[in-house]
């Protein structure tokens, strides 16, 4: 099934935005401008853009610690987001928490999670509130493959099932929890774990943005209609380290090569061209993103650092 042209370009734009944004963050990190740690999702953009763009504005997200792509796809202002990452007071959270913990209330982003597994219990309360308030929304609770080994995951699946909660669990399965391969940590797949709790499950090629989008879209409408939780497991790969300065000795070269060939952005541009989308349209998306990033960098660098005030003491 081919998507509407505007939607295709939107998917491309959000993937490119995530890629260029993170390349900028990586660049700034190497220059020492980023204080602290960043977890980059380069290589995983199709999963981030495809899942989040399947949501409505009124839906909620809870991104992972590697969540720049998800937050940007939901609408986070790149200026404020980059300012947050380089610890400026104009940042989304006033420059207090940086890359890993961004909340963005305006876009229903309820906070990215620095404690892996802590998102599941919280997502239950969000889902419960959506249900009690009778909102036509879902909450998208994202996590990595490694996090599915936390006990809170199983509690969350159980609560979502018994309370019939409108939660879409998204597993960004990038094969590794830091340096440990998923196959060394568990003998069953993540969607199998969810099936035990009667969760509607789906799997997707996480580097194929249209597949991720279409399957998630279908799940979201199913969750809204049937008032039941769902889970989608997207298989993808992070190109860079766990954090920006991880040299990745645990990665076989062949594996990296294989996945780089599956670059979700290059793949999608090739597909769009094959589908007769004009080069000029693609070029203008690229230019638009470049401009957004340049403006974001300018804004973030020019902003001030926050200063301590007594009200911060609690």
């Amino acid at each position, binding site marked *: 099934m081919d998507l509407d042209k505007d939607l295709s370009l939107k998917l491309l734009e959000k993937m490119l935005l995530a890629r260029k944004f993170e390349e900028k963050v990586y660049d700034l990190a190497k220059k020492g401008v980023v204080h602290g740690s960043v977890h980059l999702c380069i290589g995983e953009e199709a999963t981030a853009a495809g899942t989040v763009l399947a949501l409505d504005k009124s839906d909620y997200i809870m991104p992972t610690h590697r969540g720049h792509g998800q937050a940007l796809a939901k609408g986070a202002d790149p200026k404020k987001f980059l300012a947050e990452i380089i610890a400026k007071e104009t940042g989304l*959270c006033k420059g207090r*928490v940086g890359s890993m913990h961004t909340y963005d209330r305006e876009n229903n982003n309820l906070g990215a999670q620095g404690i892996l597994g802590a998102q599941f*219990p*919280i997502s239950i309360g969000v889902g419960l509130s959506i249900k*009690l308030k009778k909102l036509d929304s879902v909450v998208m609770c994202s996590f990595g493959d490694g996090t599915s080994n936390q006990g809170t995951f199983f509690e969350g699946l159980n609560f979502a099932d*018994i309370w019939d909660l409108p939660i879409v669990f998204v597993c960004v399965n990038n094969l590794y929890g830091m340096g440990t391969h998923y196959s060394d940590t568990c003998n069953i797949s993540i969607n199998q774990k969810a099936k035990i709790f009667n969760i509607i499950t789906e799997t997707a090629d996480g580097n194929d943005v249209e597949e991720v989008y279409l399957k998630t879209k279908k799940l979201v409408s199913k969750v809204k209609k049937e008032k039941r939780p769902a889970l989608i497991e997207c298989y993808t790969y992070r190109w860079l380290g766990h954090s920006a300065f991880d040299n990745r000795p645990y990665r076989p070269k062949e594996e990296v090569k294989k996945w780089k060939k599956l670059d979700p952005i290059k793949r999608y541009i090739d597909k769009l061209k094959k589908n007769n989308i004009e080069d000029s349209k693609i070029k203008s998306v690229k230019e638009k993103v470049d401009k957004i990033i340049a403006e974001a960098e300018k804004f973030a660098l020019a902003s001030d650092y926050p200063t301590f005030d007594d009200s911060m003491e*609690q």
Partner: protein
Amino acid sequence: MREITYSQALREAMSQEMREDSSVLLIGEDVGGGYRGCFGVSTGMLEEFGENQIIDTPISENTILGAGIGAALMGMKPIVEMMFEDFIAICFDGILNQAAKVKFMSGDQFSLNLVVRLPGGSGNGTGPHHSQCLESIFMSIPGLKIAVPSNAYDAKGLLKTSINLGEPVLFFEHKKLYKTKSEVPEEAYSIPFGKGKIIKEGSDLTIVALSYMVNVAKESVLELENRYGLNVEIIDPRTIVPLDIDIIGESVKKTSKLIILEEGVLRGGVGAEICSQVNEKFFDYLDYPIKRIASKNMAVPMSPFLEKAMIPNKDSVLDEIKEYLKL
């Protein structure tokens, strides 16, 4: 005025808020069906408010607390009941890294109306996993407020305040207080955080006591005063975060002597914090070093003999006061 129990006061506070606002929820193990709350605090609430407000859960403390946090992020006013205070250990992340930090981390985009009710305390042989007083552990976590009501009147007023405070509150209820009665107005009222109460005025000695230990202090002091003709001031801080250090300081200015009495263990206790603050602000008014009376640094035993040896009681407190005053 009518008298009701501490349990009834808690139930009345929750019920009055729930009638006003359907976003007030009670979430926990056996709060609705079955037991109606392990200690009967929520008896009858399921019948009045239904399953949309009285929410029974599986035995999963992590998710019980998380459900409260998530609901509070969505603008609800959840009250989470830990069946026993000791069980909070299972969901420590939710307290330490989530609830306490949301407001700061979000750059003030979100604030939580979240109350965690914590039945604690010993004295009935329930042993090391069902008897602790853990206030002091949480006192050093920025972002939490902590209430320790010692009587039905305060329990009702502080719970109403907690439900609407906009910050996460740990609400410590002592199990031995549930059946104690005091005069409680029928209408709803709020007691502000950070305002202590003088339980009994006096000029010879100040005792700051927490929660159930207020009752123990009263009994010990009654005997002390009868025997020695002394006049002891007893102060109940009611909340320990924020702490009304001034009401304690003003009392010390009168009495020049201070004892802090709590049921939690001595080492690193609430008493240690109060002692330090008084030293920093009111040292010049003290005649004697400040004394802390607390439980011994050990797990709470089931054995009634060991339990009695560990936890302050009327006689042990009396002995310690006499020693302090060199009587």
